[in-house]
């Protein structure tokens, strides 16, 4: 089994959670947040991870090299609210060993 990675997720109340995420279950950041219940059910991952709702928008605080943004993610973020320079959709960030030490903050619900 591949190694779990350590990541930090700051929830919508500003609380930081240091958690372990598996890298061998094809999970993305949105799913990790849901698996740890760091945001109430129904407020994150509404579209299921198709980059179609922006409910998993987050701000990436660490300097990790992230997967390049695809057209659908870019388009969705261009319609989302509270978007910043470091905004990404959690559902488009896969948990891989390269994400060790990632720190993200969940964007407000909208």
């Amino acid at each position: 089994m591949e190694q779990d990675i350590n990541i930090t997720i700051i929830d919508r109340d500003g609380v930081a959670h240091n958690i372990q995420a598996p890298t061998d279950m094809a999970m993305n950041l949105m799913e990790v947040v849901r698996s740890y219940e760091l945001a109430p059910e129904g407020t994150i991952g509404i579209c299921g991870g198709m980059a179609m709702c922006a409910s998993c928008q987050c701000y990436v605080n660490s300097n990790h090299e992230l997967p390049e943004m695809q057209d659908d993610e870019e388009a969705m973020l261009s319609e989302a609210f509270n978007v910043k320079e470091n905004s990404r959709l959690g559902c488009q960030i896969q948990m891989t060993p390269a994400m060790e030490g990632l720190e993200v903050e969940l964007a407000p619900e909208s």
Partner: protein
Amino acid sequence: MIKTDILIIGAGPTGLFTVFEAGLLKLKCHLIDALPQPGGQCSEIYPKKPIYDIPAYPEILAGDLTDKLLEQCKQFEPGFTLGERAETIDKQDDGTFIVTTNKGTKHHAPVVAIASGLGSFEPRKPLIHNISDFEDKGVEYIIKDPELYRDKKVVIAGGGDSALDWSIFLSDVASEVTLIHRRNEFRGHLDSVEKVQELKNKGKVNLITPAEVIGILGARKVKGVVVKQTQHIEKEFEIECDHFVPLFGLSPKLGPIANWGLEIEKNAIKVNNALDYQTNIPGIFAIGDGNTYPGKLKLILCGFHEATLMCQAAYQIINPGKRYVLKYTTVSGIDGFDGTRKEAPKAVVKKIE
């Protein structure tokens, strides 16, 4: 007053399949949905996305699944109250319920099945400081009656299908249509994008990109909007208009159902999954993505199963003590409420000479 046997709140896949299962038990259904069309999330969010875990369908588009479910339940003549949100529920002395929508439409039924998924879809409102002052005074988040815009100046904001489609439609109705989007690229069907390009070239739609509306002008009603454009150099300017229509998609909210006295956990309604998916209020059931119980999975196929068991319990409430055993459709066929009958062809008995 609309009267029915099972009042279903939510016309998504689970709600639609309930109509079929109820029909087999000769129970009639009526559905309420806040969206203007049936299908729920499947129609509203991802009609063109394939689903791979519907039994016997290796692959089916979400929009096609809705069409198939509607076709499957058609002979049981479901009633629909669409574009209205279930607002209040009142239990009557005889144990039946009256559910009233936000538009005042009343529905009377002995059994209520909440199949509301993640909730009713509410428009996402852009963060413009004074937007709430102008709601229904020139700001509309959903276009209900296009005639409202006849010979008016309209500004639409958004980059998805609804922004494109309405820009196209209103270019023939309004005196002036301006479409504003934060990027040059649009997220929509290619033919819609091409059509808007064509209308722009003809001067029938003003396109302003990359830009966004940052303020609304007017006293008691909308007189214009403030636009910030960021191409090359940043500039701000005003556009005169009678209506501002921000179309930034919809997001589901549990809404008024949260105040119905139901036990809620994790934004979902707690039910008895050992028996019949009934809530803490007898006669009210919750099925599909909107319910919760130990081990719950939010899958369409689980909603179908929950709907089927729920209908058996509804039968007992509506026909107390009346005998019934499960029948297979292969054996008994289907008798529609519209007088149609579907049945297996009779086996041919023929002598071999």
